[in-house]
């Protein structure tokens, strides 16, 4: 079988598996977030936390809870790293330096999982287990909670209508309330992330991923050398790393490491885990909106963009332009033999179109256009399908922008889901999607203007610029993958990238929740013959166009200096 045919079959198998679970899993998640009942274990957790699970929060209160919980996460993670040498299970590793500890804490709490450290030589088991792995769960659950809260605001019907009464249990029945952050958080962890991660972790062990609590042990090889074989609770972390679109590897080589990703089968499972929640959440949205076709319209736009990225990266890697790749006879630099070009390209496109950032091959060594396509994938704002939760609320923001643009063209007041989009809504939406480009471009400009940028590059010329641009794009979009040639463990990069991650995560959340709160207060307007049908394929097409135009205009000059210049030279 030719590698191209095998790659096509692999893509078909992945799409088939995602399609199979889309409906049941999406509906299950909708049920989780709308059910009025609490599980016994959840009641127990609420008692420990000391919150009333049936209280309803207005947007500002919901946001404060999100920020308080995330701030606590940053502080705990920072403390764990700074005190590592004094805590048990440290494997003898030193405490992490302040700038790197801040960077890592910001990174894991913001669901970015950018790593300026090398896992196997810096982090002991205790930090990995109780710090990093915990944030893998809760940062994902926070993203999903915010997405669900935003959806509640979008679909909220005033209590007067019959529909509204039926939806009263969703917690959005009273004016402007978006639900309860603590129940959304706990349910996301207990009912969705933990069970799926548990089963997948065991499946990963079955394929060869390690899972033990030992440190490295020494073996004497047949050729007379000594080798330190590492150990650790890798599978349990690997499962949630992909499922929560986190991406922080247990080892420096991330999912290219054979202990994290030992075979073609484990690789497909990991790509599936990366994509399953972001794609299925569109069904959750459709179900909660009372019209599943609204969800399919978003899914269509996400699917087209994701598939486009997969095809672009795959085509470029198989064609392997670039003098070094041509000299080698294939783009295998930085790739593993068991994956080859096809599985590496599929993973690369999926990890950058979501906010995962795990890698099974090193993007820095991809062909200029293949690497450029992964960069563009992140620049689209990671909404196709995006990170868990953040992809959905990011796409909803773009949907508001798309109906606004369409409204401008025909001279009508734009509406989405029966709600009029006014000045306040479009301001919130514009602010939300402008945050990341502002962070990316100003961060890159700053690094290029100061000597810190040039000193950190491994590559030269246009490719070196791409390394820096990639770093800020990855951080501000909460991706976490890297053109890892950039030596980013310096106080300058640790600090600026850390700030980009926090602002790139929480500012769009602020604006998305404000948008949802504003929409929740709007009374629905009846649809007329002139209403734009946002559940039709035409709207999916407009959504794709809006995303590409908005991003294209923002980033084209920067892309022209980096991957385009390199690819055309």
């Amino acid at each position, binding site marked *: 079988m030719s590698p191209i045919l095998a790659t096509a079959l692999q893509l078909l198998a992945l799409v088939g598996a995602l399609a199979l679970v889309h409906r049941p899993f999406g509906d299950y998640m909708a049920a989780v977030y709308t059910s009025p009942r609490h599980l016994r274990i959840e009641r127990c957790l609420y008692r420990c936390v000391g919150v009333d699970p049936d209280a309803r929060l207005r947007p500002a209160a919901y946001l404060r809870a999100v920020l308080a919980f995330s701030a606590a996460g940053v502080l705990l993670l920072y403390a764990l790293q700074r005190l590592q040498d004094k805590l048990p299970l440290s494997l003898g590793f030193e405490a992490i330096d302040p700038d790197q500890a801040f960077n890592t804490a910001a990174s894991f709490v913001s669901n970015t999982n950018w790593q300026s450290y090398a896992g196997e030589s810096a982090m002991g088991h205790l930090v990995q287990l109780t710090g990093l792995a915990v944030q893998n769960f*809760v940062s994902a659950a926070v993203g999903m909670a915010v997405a669900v809260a935003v959806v509640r605001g979008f679909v909220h019907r005033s209590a007067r209508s019959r529909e509204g009464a039926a939806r009263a249990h969703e917690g959005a029945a009273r004016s402007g309330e978006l639900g309860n952050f603590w129940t959304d958080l706990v349910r996301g962890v207990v009912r969705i992330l933990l069970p799926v991660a548990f089963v997948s972790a065991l499946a990963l062990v079955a394929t060869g991923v390690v899972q033990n609590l030992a440190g490295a042990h020494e073996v004497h090889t047949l050729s007379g050398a000594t080798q330190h074989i590492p150990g650790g609770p890798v599978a*349990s972390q690997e499962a949630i790393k992909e499922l929560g679109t986190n991406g922080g590897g247990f080892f420096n080589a991330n999912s290219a490491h054979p202990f994290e990703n030992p075979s073609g089968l484990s690789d497909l499972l990991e790509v599936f885990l990366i994509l399953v929640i972001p794609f299925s959440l569109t069904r959750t949205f459709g179900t909660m909106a009372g019209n599943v076709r609204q969800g399919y319209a978003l899914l269509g736009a996400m699917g087209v963009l994701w598939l486009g990225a997969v095809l672009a990266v795959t085509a470029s890697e198989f064609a392997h*332009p670039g003098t070094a790749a041509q000299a080698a*006879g294939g783009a295998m630099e930085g790739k593993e033999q068991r994956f080859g070009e096809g599985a590496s390209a599929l993973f690369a496109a999926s990890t950058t179109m979501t906010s995962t950032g795990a890698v099974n091959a090193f993007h820095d060594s991809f062909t200029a256009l293949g690497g450029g396509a992964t960069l563009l994938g992140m620049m689209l704002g990671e909404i196709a399908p995006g990170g868990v939760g953040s992809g959905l609320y990011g796409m909803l923001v773009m949907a508001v922008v798309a109906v606004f643009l369409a409204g401008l063209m025909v001279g009508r007041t734009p509406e989405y889901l029966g709600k009029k989009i006014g000045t306040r809504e479009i301001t919130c939406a514009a602010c939300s999607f402008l945050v990341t480009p502002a962070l990316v471009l100003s961060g890159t400009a700053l690094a290029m203007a100061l000597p810190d940028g040039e000193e950190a590059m491994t590559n030269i010329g246009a490719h070196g610029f791409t390394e820096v641009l990639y770093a800020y794009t990855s951080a501000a979009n909460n991706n976490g993958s890297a053109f890892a040639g950039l030596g980013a463990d310096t106080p300058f990069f640790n600090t600026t990238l850390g700030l980009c991650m926090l602002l790139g995560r929480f500012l769009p959340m602020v604006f998305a929740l404000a948008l949802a709160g504003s929409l929740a207060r709007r009374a629905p307007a009846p649809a007329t013959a002139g209403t734009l049908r946002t559940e039709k394929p035409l709207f999916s097409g407009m959504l794709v166009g809006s995303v590409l135009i908005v991003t294209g205009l923002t980033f084209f000059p920067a892309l022209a200096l980096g991957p385009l210049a390199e690819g055309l030279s």
Partner: protein
Amino acid sequence: MTATLSPRRTGRLAWAACRALLVLTVVCGLLYPLAVTGIAQAAFPDRADGTPVRADGRDVGSALVGQRWSGREWFHGRPSHSDYDPRATGSGQLGASDPRLVRTVRENRQAVADYNGVPTAAVPPDAVTGSGSAIDPDVSPEYARIQTSRVARANHLTKGAVRELVDAHTEGRDLGFLGEPRVNVLKLNVAVRKAAAAAR
């Protein structure tokens, strides 16, 4: 708005956030990984411990972690950025058009061709490029095949016998279509060593 932001309410919220984080740390950071470890160790003890390979009655490495092989009697793996040190995994990070990478690739191609006595055109891409992990345990079947004559001569085995070992250790794609065909270098070398010992 000012009422909701009073210091007392902010303090209560911060306290709830800390408690939530601690409770979830116990559930996700201790109970979950320990449960996975317990079941994994019971159900797949070998794999959970890194798929060790034994030869001569001792542990000689992991089937999933590549090793550095020097000497004509062994099959060699791919170039490694860290010389196959599992404590420093990762790749060389040079771009596909980088002049330094071009030079390395050309030098590797010539070196592999000379070492194995084959024309440079017969050297496959994986033999001249660094892997992603730096501990790639596999090579392509093509790279294994061009090494057979050299390994056979050094071990005083027939070329046909070594070729058979290579074929026996060639793994196809998972389920027939996932990933790429490959040969595990450590397992193959263990088999070659066994055959050489039997022939003596």
